[in-house]
């Protein structure tokens, strides 16, 4: 490996490391300083996590330096699709199950009938 190449690589790793540290710290500070709340905060840290994923993939795993055909990238994209379906699908299905079986907290004070009438807008003609 030529000297210049290795210097560039060291810089690449160092930049990736620094970016990752900053993204981690930023996420931590957003949470502890309570800058936003609720959904805005959750969305922000999710975004930061995805940014850091991208940073580590590029700077540490060199996913972009693969020559064509880009098999590693293809397999990675397929994995992402699988993961998204698995995680979001599970959450959606189990939420739906919870709802239909009346095990959610907010129905404790009403009967299930009252809750469903209220929530789904069912009414007698």
């Amino acid at each position: 490996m030529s000297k210049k190449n290795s210097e560039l690589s060291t810089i690449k790793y160092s930049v990736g490391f620094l970016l990752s540290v900053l993204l981690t710290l930023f996420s931590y500070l957003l949470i502890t300083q309570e800058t936003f709340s609720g959904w805005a905060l959750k969305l922000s840290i999710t975004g930061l996590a995805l940014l850091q994923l991208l940073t580590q993939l590029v700077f540490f795993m060199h996913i972009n330096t693969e020559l064509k055909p880009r098999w590693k990238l293809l397999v990675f994209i397929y994995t992402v699709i699988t993961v998204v379906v698995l995680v979001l699908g599970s959450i959606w299905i189990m939420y739906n199950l919870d709802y239909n079986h009346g095990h959610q907290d907010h129905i404790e004070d009403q009967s299930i009938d009252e809750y469903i009438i209220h929530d789904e807008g069912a009414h007698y003609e």
Partner: protein
Amino acid sequence: MSELKDNSTANFGFWIYLMTDAVLFASFFAVYAVMQNNTYGGPAGIDIFDLKFVLIESLILLTSSYTCGLTILAAKKGNKKLSLTALATTGLLGLSFLGMELYEFSHLVNNGEGWTRSGYLTSFFGLVGLHGLHIIVGILWLVVLKFLIIKRGLTESTTNKLALFSMYWHFLDIIWIFIFTFVYGMGVIK
């Protein structure tokens, strides 16, 4: 037994393994997400997570990922001494991470907040424990690699083994990003 002409097949195969490991972790994440409210009268995330402690853990693991990268760079330059030093640093940082994690776990268990307390805690220990188990395996692999390089030096074979290890180690750091964000991070947000 014939030698591979180059290591590209082995490296691609290992990459595919990492992708299947990602799907495995995803299933544990899915369970954790579903079990969020199954606290059974026990503690929720906000009751047991110390974000500052976790931040330090995260920075340690991140640094170990960096020194792992430096190990590979040194190995590619044929610098045996430097690569072994960087590798040892990676291992020590990994052990520090593990020590902190075991401290956190034992503290929870001693408080009666272990994996048998509730479905939520089972899923927490399952997910974070799975990651910790991967770290342990990684450290064992690292130790073996260290002896291998000391004995045989930086050949094309041993250098490639280092490359595979570094892929594995970076992967674990990536998984930790998601644990840090979606387990601990989300856990302390009201």
